[in-house]
């Protein structure tokens, strides 16, 4: 009898071992499904969204058809008269692509520095070296007061930087500093540093700590434990994510061209406004080639280093 009660008590708290679902029972899942459906209906009602919004406006269908008709025939030369001495279209596309990459690389370099600093300071592992035992009043004060403050500041900074989109940063900086290349680079670098910081800190905190603990047990300093025991475990993931963000940075850099920065977006918007759809496709393909190229390159590097 007593054994039975004990068995019940032991079984009760760890309920879903073979059910596997975090959401518990089937009825719980039904409620969640119902909630999601309700939210979708509410959103549609609030937005006053109707399917009529998808019917093209006058001339819209034609425009779309004409645009996509050129997809298989991108322009090989300008679609209107250009002054003598203008570089051929393919060279213009190449130059715009090169500038797109340069902007992305510059922004990403800044973002990486910021992201690594924020990621380290924002991780709990960085501050995990709190000394045990009754000594070092200064050290204890540091870990009790200063450290949580810096950690919190890093987290707030991360949220602030990444909750504003790079286009908004660009608008802000354009208004403040005008159209110059630094503006675009900083506009991309700020939210990217925030995002990298957030993801890096999570990767560091989720990395296996066995080696770090072993190094601490053999007397290594806190900084050595962090840098040599913990960071190497997170590094492959951090690299992979940084490469993914580099692809994103290329797209962002291209899009900022719509504001007048000399990247692929500028060429695309100019050709689009002149209804030179063939040219638009040429530039779009250049952008695709760029992103694909980075993807292949990062994939090759990952295979070599991450295994």
């Amino acid at each position, binding site marked *: 009898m007593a054994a039975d009660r004990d068995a019940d008590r032991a079984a009760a708290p760890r309920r879903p071992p073979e059910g596997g679902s975090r959401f518990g029972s089937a009825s719980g899942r039904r409620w969640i499904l119902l909630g999601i459906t309700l939210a979708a209906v509410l959103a549609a009602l609030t937005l006053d969204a109707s399917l009529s919004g998808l019917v093209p406006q006058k001339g819209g269908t034609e425009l779309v058809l004409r645009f996509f008709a050129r997809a298989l025939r991108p322009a090989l030369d300008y679609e209107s008269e250009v002054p003598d001495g203008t570089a051929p279209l393919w060279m213009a596309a190449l130059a715009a692509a090169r500038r797109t990459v340069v902007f992305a690389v510059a922004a990403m370099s800044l973002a990486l520095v910021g992201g690594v600093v924020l990621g380290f300071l924002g991780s709990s592992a960085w501050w995990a070296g709190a000394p045990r035992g009754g000594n070092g009043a200064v050290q204890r004060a540091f870990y009790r007061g200063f450290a949580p403050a810096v950690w919190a500041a890093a987290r707030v900074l991360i949220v602030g930087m990444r909750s504003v989109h790079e286009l908004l940063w660009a608008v802000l900086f354009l208004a403040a500093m005008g159209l110059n290349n630094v503006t675009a680079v900083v506009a991309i670098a700020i939210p990217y540093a925030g995002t990298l910081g957030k993801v890096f800190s999570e990767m560091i905190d989720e990395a296996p700590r066995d080696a770090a603990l072993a190094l601490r047990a053999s*007397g290594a300093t806190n900084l050595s434990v962090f840098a040599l025991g913990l960071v190497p*475990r997170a590094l492959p993931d951090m690299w992979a994510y940084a490469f993914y963000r580099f692809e994103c940075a290329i797209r962002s850099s291209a899009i900022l061209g719509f504001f007048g920065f000399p990247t692929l977006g500028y060429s695309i918007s100019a050709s689009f406004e002149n209804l030179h759809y063939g040219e638009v496709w040429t530039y779009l393909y250049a952008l695709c080639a760029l992103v694909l190229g980075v993807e292949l390159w990062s994939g090759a590097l990952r295979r070599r280093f991450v295994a």
Partner: protein
Amino acid sequence: MTAARRDDAPPGAFGFEVRRASVVYGPRRVLDQVDLAFAPGEVVALVGPSGAGKTTLLRLLNAALAPTEGVVLATGPSGAVQLDRATPRELRALRSRIGFVHQDLALVPNVRVLQNVLHGRLGRQGFVAALRSSLFPSRAEEEAAARLLDRVGIGEKLFQRTDTLSGGQRQRVAIARALYQEPAALLCDEPVSSVDPARARDTVLLLTALAKERGFTLVVSLHDVRLAREFFPRLVALRGGSVWFDRRTAEVRPSELEELYRLERVELLADGS
């Protein structure tokens, strides 16, 4: 060769003294009033069923854990240090001389074997020196690591990525890392739990031979009583957090060991788990 060995040998092995030490986690007394002493240079096996407190005892000895009650002392040539009262500086100095081979090895898998071995010296390096030796190991460091790897039998693996090695080879790396500390004491937690019987024998043989050749204190927790009897002159048996017996191996009767583990089965049945 003998002269070189003497250079390698630590200036003095550590002894340990555990006085009425208990470790309590919530309602569970993992160690209960344990009294033990390990002389400098002694070679001891900890035996007992799983959950007996062997790992906890080892963790007390390298101050990874502080006793809830009682005292743990490390005694070296420069006197005794009470581990839970030590300053961070003293603690670092002590730990840098206590090697620990963890059950799960606790190596960094995605760096070279060389780096993992060099990690053994981190306790005696500042951060900048540690980073330098990890990123740009000197010729001397490479040679020292290669010598240790040779000694543990995997000399050719120096520049391989650690996670390309087999379980048994990785264990050798963990031992080499501990040796690179020039340990005054080496603590091993179930070093043979994850290797096959033939290799288990080799590992225990290696550890005891190293202790003899370099003069460090060796405390190994072992599940395999036969290996413990064969290679260790002294057996400390733990059961339920207390010392069950602590004797010269020659004086331990086989029936006592049988009883040590038989009681475990009886208790398991009584627990109903």
